């Protein structure tokens, strides 16, 4: 759409800007402020410059959490994206089944995140949980409080359960926007199922998939409540991700300076990745406009 150049549009933005500034800029400046100072109490503080940043970047705890975070985010993306596409292809398109399946598939997304943790805790406990109990009955010594492998597998399974619906719903809406004529043309050409997917459905899906991957990436990068409830970050620190390390440091130990520096590093990483995706989305829209 060709937009009119008009700076009075700022008046429409203004109320939103003030509100978001109150909840974003002021707190962020507080973080920046702390990150360059050593605070003893309300009146005694020293300027430390980049000391906290250097300390944090060399901190093995942060490095470990960061590595685990990337491993986690990439793993769940690798599972959820193909699975989500598959489910979207399987979902019924019309009739009462479509509504029922849609609501059932959406359900995990509407559960508060700590409750998701509780659900999986109840489900996977060795003594009272269906999954934990069954695995033990089958002879596998399943134990998420002792085995890091089990803890990881469970958290990934939980995330797949929780968030695959998002990808599936995005793809479902993408698929529904394909006109029937495309499929008819493919049938006339006797296109195989694979070529229909590859040349008709997948191109339509790229738009929504970029949004989906972006949303999934950033949500997985700030995951907190689910592993916190399920494993508490353990065994050891094998499932402690960035948010949890940060919260422990900021609230638990009250290390204002280092945790502020940690926050900024954390935020900058997310910002960088987001910017890459954002540029991709904007370029896609530009291409769309040219094509239309």
């Amino acid at each position, binding site marked *: 759409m060709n937009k009119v150049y008009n700076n009075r549009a700022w008046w429409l933005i203004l109320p939103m800007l003030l509100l978001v500034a109150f909840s974003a800029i002021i707190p962020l400046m507080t973080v920046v402020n702390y990150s360059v100072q050593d605070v003893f109490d309300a009146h005694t503080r020293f300027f430390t410059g980049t000391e906290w940043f250097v300390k944090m970047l060399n901190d093995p705890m942060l490095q470990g959490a960061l590595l685990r975070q990337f491993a986690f985010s990439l793993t769940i993306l690798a599972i959820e994206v193909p699975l989500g596409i598959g489910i979207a292809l*399987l979902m019924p398109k019309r009739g009462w089944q479509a*509504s029922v399946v849609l609501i059932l598939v959406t359900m995990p997304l509407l559960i508060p995140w*700590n409750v998701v943790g509780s659900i999986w805790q109840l489900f996977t406990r060795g003594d009272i949980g269906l999954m934990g109990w069954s695995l033990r009955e089958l002879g596998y010594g399943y134990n998420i409080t002792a085995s890091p492998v089990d803890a990881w597998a469970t958290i990934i399974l939980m995330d797949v359960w929780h968030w695959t619906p998002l990808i599936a719903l995005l793809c479902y809406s993408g698929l529904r926007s394909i006109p029937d004529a495309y499929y008819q043309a493919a049938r006339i050409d006797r296109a195989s199922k694979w070529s229909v997917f590859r040349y008709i459905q997948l191109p339509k899906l790229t738009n929504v998939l970029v949004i989906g991957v972006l949303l999934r990436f950033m949500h997985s990068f700030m995951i907190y409540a689910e592993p916190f409830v399920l494993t508490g970050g353990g065994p050891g620190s094998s499932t402690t991700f960035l948010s949890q390390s940060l919260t422990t440091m900021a609230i638990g130990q009250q290390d204002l300076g280092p945790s502020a520096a940690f926050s900024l590093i954390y935020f900058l990483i997310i910002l960088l990745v987001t910017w890459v995706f954002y540029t991709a989305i904007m370029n896609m829209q530009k291409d769309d406009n040219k094509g239309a």
Partner: protein
Amino acid sequence: MSHTSPTTPDAVRQRAAEADNRRRRRARPASRQWRRRGLMTAYLVFVLLPIYWLLNMSFQSNAEILGGLTLWPENFTVEHYAKILTESSWYMGYVNSIIYVLMNMVISIAVALPAAYAFSRYQFIGDKHLFFWLLTNLMAPPAVFLLPYFQLYYTVGLFDTHVAVALAHCLFNIPLAVWILEGFMSGVPKEIDETAFIDGYSFPRFFIKIFIPMISSGIGVTLFFLFMFSWVELLLASTLTSTGAQPIASVMTQTKGASGIDWGTLAAAGALTILPGIIVVYFVRNHIAKGFALGRT
């Protein structure tokens, strides 16, 4: 294909071949359809099984839960639900959550509507940067803002009020609302605005009388998302409150008592948090898919 009778031998053969093809094509997908249904059912079982387990436990007494694994409640009881619905420390958790979620929805949609309109219709200095900055707030990990929020709201005297949580959730809900609404608004042809202005509508009147009704489904979907993200967020909500506006999420941590965890009540409380989501999703089920694509398909 025409529906008149074929007149040439070639046409007859072609018609027969088509009919044959149709029959074959219909025969093959029958098995494929069953495979599709089987896979879909398998996935739904995967989705529903943990939820079923939660419900199963919420209807069992704690003695039965700990006494051994039972696949369905053998001594069906609603004691946990009764406890939650009669003790004010429990049900106030739900009331508090719903209050701040509704406040957040009203605030967010009110400021996001004009902003989204500006982004979808006008170019202005810094528009692209502003939009990206908004998105960065959507990406901001709540953990980063935890401590500053606590201090900020404590200083301005909003700590432990519903307004504090509603405002804090604006951090990610307003950008989300702007993003979704902008997608829906860009789908409305600009000629409608121009015609309305030529007809002498003032901007506020046009916006309320004509434009908002046109994107009502988009607004409905946006409200659903605002509800959803405010409802599921826990970290900020529980940090910014203590007793006066405590959300259900942090009330649930009370189930850890001296005698271990009260599993039954935990399960019942969890089951009740799913309910509002299902009620809300029912109303937007036809538009939800489009909303997840941020109004962009």
